[in-house]
């Protein structure tokens, strides 16, 4: 039931040229946005991502999407100006694939299962890209 809620909400995250895929992984669903262009993408190399992913527990929305961070591919992503790996990021494995994980969660937003959705979660993720670091 809750997995279906995740998949239904994830379907609304699709954008022109990008697709959304949901992969069941144990007690979680990994939501993957393929061919994702982040806001302020020019601050990063490459400016367009192969994929953006985040983990959502199957007991969503009682449990929020993983607040410890999100994943991007390619894992070689760097900041355009410094050519350095983005702050608070590191290589990790998800679904048997290498990703770059941004260890980042909103300090001001606490999840409200009655009002928050995957769209508000994605908006929080996009706030991280606006930093350009």
């Amino acid at each position, binding site marked *: 039931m809750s997995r279906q809620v995740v998949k239904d909400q994830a379907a609304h995250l699709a954008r022109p040229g990008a697709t959304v895929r949901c992969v069941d992984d144990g007690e979680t669903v990994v939501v993957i946005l393929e061919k994702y262009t982040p806001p302020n993408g020019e601050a990063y190399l490459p400016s367009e991502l192969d994929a953006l992913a985040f983990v959502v527990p199957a*007991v969503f929305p*009682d449990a929020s999407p993983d607040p410890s961070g999100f994943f991007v591919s390619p894992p070689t992503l760097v900041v355009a100006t410094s050519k350095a790996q983005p702050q608070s990021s590191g290589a990790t494995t998800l679904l048997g694939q290498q990703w770059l994980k941004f260890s980042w969660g909103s300090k001001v937003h606490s999840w*409200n299962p009655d009002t928050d959705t995957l769209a508000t979660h994605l908006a929080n993720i996009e706030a991280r890209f606006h930093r350009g670091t």
Partner: protein
Amino acid sequence: MHSFSEKALRRVIRLLRSRRAELATSDASEVPRRRLEIAWTAADREAIELVALAAAPREGAIVALCRMSTGATRDTYIVLNPIAPVAGDLSYHRGRLVTVTARYWNRAIDQRADAGPGTGLCVLHTHPGEGVPVWSGDDDRADEELARFLFGEGFLPPDAPLLSLVASHSDLRGRALNLDHATGAVDMRPVERVRTLGPDRLAVASTIDRVWPRDHREVPIHADRSVRVFGREGQRLLADVHVALVGNGGVGSIVGDQIARWGVGRVSGWDPDVVEDLNINRSGVFSFADAALKRPKAQALVEALPAFALVRDLDTRWSQHDVRDPRELPALLDADVVVMLVDDVRPRHFINRLAYAHYIPALDGGNAIRSTAENDANAESATVESGGVRVSHLTPGGPCLWCTGHINARRLSLAFRPADDVAADRARGYVEHLGPEHAPSVMPVNSMTAALIMCRLQDLLFGLSGRAVPEVYFDVMAGTLDELPRARQSGCRQCVRWEGQADGAQLPFAE
């Protein structure tokens, strides 16, 4: 005591006559016997009995909703949402004998339909006076008519619970009513036990119809000192209680040891882990031999209990499965109280919802110690910075672990993180949201946690304090014990939303 339209009544009587032969030959022994209990909150019970008994010296009656909670060996009918009668809902014949009018039934049927699938009806009528109420011939006929009418006319789905209670000023009896649509026979199963859940107490009482043998246990012969505390009746009560122990590690193993010595008669244990050498210095019961054999903690604990249990024929069950495994639910729903001593937020979220949905109160305990050495198992010296022990009481009407902030959406989500990702975070030093990999733990604090659990359990079963104590907190550094003011959050999507939903509740099972 019940009343229908004349037309419906005639139909019921015709059915009754045509099926009398089948009724006489029905063989209940073919069906595996299950115990039947009812559970209700103290507030609902008071509302129901007060309203109905207010009609004394005439009979009174009241209708309520009920739902089924299906355990492995017992069915619990949860009685809730009393529908108070208004003027004209009850009528009397021969001056004293109450009948529930068709108008009242129609109102109850409508409310039942609005309450969702799995909801049934409960009717209580009174026999004013003291003593055990006796079902009269009129009661028997009325209950049969009621079952034929509600089930036969489709006002109740075949699997919906239908319960008839009769109360005097001092006692209560009950029976579940079912209609066999194939034969037209009405089956009446007696209620054997009543659990009343208050904010301050779990009152468990057998009815005169109790046949389950545990009720006839002798008081254990070695109970001398504890009989001097609660009497022989108190010792029998303990022997009749079933404690589900979720988490059989450091604190859980100490609690298991103590409840067996105390005289609890049924203990079920759940823990997915095995005993390791590193567990021994802060646990009860476990030995290095258990660790060498890598015995499951639940097995090592539960199988040790009969050697020192006060109840010599202690009923035990253990499981290494995750308590959230759907296969474990029926065994959990046989318990009278859950004692939960786990670090993992996922089973705590599961039991939290179960406690409210199925009217099985839970005590949730835990402790935490902060030390300068919490991330270093080889530290030469360390300073304890803080420490605390908490025990929360989860019961219908009271605050749940979400209301009090012990579980929130963020903490729950973090518990579901993939292991690879958690390991990568630790390797990179991002541990703020993780806490120490192996939390500091020491025997005196675990013993204190177990002691608080035991004292809260004692208060719950014997009503010593006589007041609601949703949470207690022991400050390890200050050596102080406090009751914390805790209140239910209105509209809580955990306790309020699922309270009393019983088998209709969506539980957060492991997938």
